């Protein structure tokens, strides 16, 4: 009974590295890599973890986000490749893939991109009628989106940065409280959310295992988002992002963990189907 009661204990205070550790969802943060170069070529895979508000119940890993950076160091534009997989109830999957060209400025301003959004059913077959493919580029204070159905312009009020870009940009930022950056967010390369501000908060220290761990903390606040807290190691590698009940945890095993989650969702779906049909359908 004590265990059950503990599982229903609410989180109580804002998610942080220490809290995620207490909840058992953070695991081990990869050790700092002195060879990591934020403006070089790298690939980071994050496990997307959701919290239902309880310490030890309903904390799931419904997805992962893989971001890869390529392109020259220095002032030239660089490229980001993104793959995000989200597993829904009934084992449906949403896959988002993007290739983005970005400026090497402080907010990794978007230049152009190609993006596809696909949904898979419980059998991992693509649901054709839910597929969307877009090419986009920034033009003045607007973005132009091309799809198979036409070309559409959207006003943005200035240069834009996607949430995926920000995972890159924050790694190139100085650990300097005096230099916040302001930008317009194009969330998921589609939703326009202006007036964002990102600033360095300082050093965040917490107890981890036998010792203390130190991370560098940035916060983003703006229209249409819950605050984003970014945590980086001393070599500027982004290891953790928390926004509201959702966390992105750097984890090389993320894809396997999400696959396990999908299999569990599939099992639940089949069980539900069995119950509904009395076992008459496979």
């Amino acid at each position: 009974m004590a265990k059950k009661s503990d599982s229903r204990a609410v989180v109580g205070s804002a998610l942080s590295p220490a809290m995620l550790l207490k909840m058992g969802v953070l695991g081990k943060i990869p050790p700092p890599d002195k060879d990591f170069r934020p403006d070089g070529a790298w690939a980071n895979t994050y496990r997307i973890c959701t919290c239902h508000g309880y310490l030890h119940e309903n904390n799931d890993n419904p997805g992962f986000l893989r971001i890869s950076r390529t392109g020259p160091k220095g002032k030239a534009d660089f490229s980001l490749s993104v793959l995000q997989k989200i597993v829904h109830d009934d084992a449906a999957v949403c896959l988002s893939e993007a290739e983005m060209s970005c400026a090497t400025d402080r907010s990794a301003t978007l230049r152009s991109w190609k993006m596809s959004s696909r949904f898979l059913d419980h059998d991992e077959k693509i649901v054709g009628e839910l597929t969307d493919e877009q090419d986009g580029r920034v033009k003045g204070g607007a973005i132009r989106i091309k799809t198979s159905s036409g070309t559409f312009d959207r006003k943005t009020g200035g240069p834009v940065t996607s949430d995926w870009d920000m995972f890159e940009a924050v790694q190139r930022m100085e650990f300097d409280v005096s230099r916040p950056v302001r930008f317009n967010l194009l969330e998921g390369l589609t939703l326009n959310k202006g007036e964002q501000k990102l600033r360095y908060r300082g050093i965040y220290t917490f107890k981890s295992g036998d010792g203390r761990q130190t991370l560098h903390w940035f916060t983003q606040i703006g229209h249409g988002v819950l605050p984003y807290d970014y945590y980086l190691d001393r070599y500027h590698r982004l290891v953790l992002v928390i926004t509201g009940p959702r966390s992105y945890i750097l984890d090389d095993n993320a894809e396997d963990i999400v696959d396990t989650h999908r299999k569990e969702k599939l099992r639940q779906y089949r069980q539900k189907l069995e119950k509904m049909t009395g076992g008459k359908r496979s």
Partner: protein
Amino acid sequence: MNTNTRSDMPIGSMDRRGFLKFAGAASIAIAGAPGWLGAANKDAKPKNILIIATDQQHIDTIAASGCGDVKTPALDRLKERGFSFKLSYTNNPVCSPARAAIFTGRTSSETGVYKNGIPVRTPIPNLGQWLSEKTGYETVYAGKWHVPSTFTTFIPGFKVITTGIGGQGNVCDTNISKACRAYLQNRSKARGLLMVASFLQPHDICEWLRINTEVPDEFRYPEIANDLPELPDNFEYDTNEPEGIRRTRMTREGVKGNWTKQHWRYYRWSYYRHIEIVDAEIGRLLDSLDDFGYAGDTMIILTSDHGEGMGHHQWVRKSTLYDEGVSVPLLISWPRHIGLDKTNSNDLVSGLDIMPTICDYVGIEPPANMRGESLRGILEGKTGLEREFIVSESNSNAGRMVRTKRYKYISYVEDPVEQLFDMENDPGETKNLAGVKRYASALREHRQILHEWESSLDVAPNVPDVDLWRRQLQSRARA
């Protein structure tokens, strides 16, 4: 057949002129169609209908309606494109019961969905089943259902776009709107479409509450400390409340956690961000209608299953019969047929009205025993409703609310404390007049309204406390 109108619900020999004096204004028929209707005619049918459902949206969360603490460009567009109703109420301030009522036009006690996680009683048809059977509309559902499963691949009468993650609108809502956009782009337009896009936000405020129960020693985001919304005028409340309400409040995060005023304000700030999050998804839907050639002939209906406490009466979450729980947005638009940027502050409307309104517009009879009414006359500027009251039920069949133009009456089963509020002079519901001698006749009249309304319902056999209610209503109506 609608039963909650003056003509169908005689109240006997009572003198209603006092507290119902404002009802007459709603009944005035306006001769001829107003200029803004343009090419409208009575046989016109919308080619497509899009129902946008949000979850747990307080009515006062739209910038264009005057809320200064939030930016909602998409909701603003919707409001400016059509009608918004100020006196709009859910039939039940809890998810499943409210949704069952919206999609069947029957009260939650009639559908049998008196609390979360119960299916609609057979054979009451839902909107998808009814339109599939009676019309050629393609019926498509994406997102939260919750009658009984929160997200499911199987909803009677609908082709389901399987999307959604229980309790995580922050992850799944964007996929719901993306799937709807793709579907609108890729489908054949040969048939008319009824699409439901049912978002989970701003319901994630429930997760926020569990995560932020405790007041931190230091405010986490000092840069917004000066931007936090003020507390509502009715943050303090009349302590003469029904026992169940007082008890429930004590278990909720705000009061239980002994929150500081700053933490209450931070909670409100966070809730507004949840509103902005779903607003962006609604924006994607509106852009999609524009992009793919639907906007000119699509009726859009936006509503929410129930409201959110937001600190009014120091309440958080849903389930209360105070306005923060039961009052919900209702925006309806259809280019050239429904007036632009009209606000209706006079007619009492309910989630129960959505099904009969849609049936009216697509030219079919609604299912039997609708408890709501078509709003078409109001939307087209021809007539107001003759309705003088609406009734909402509450979770587990424990409470009832009667809202008339002037008053609100609240009663809970087996609770001696009744509530009566003068909504004209005390819209924040802070002074309970139920025990005030001067309002005794208003109290009697509302008891009688409720008694007669309840007597007209076909309550499902699984609903608890039905006999208790009947006895209580009868004895109070006689008192």
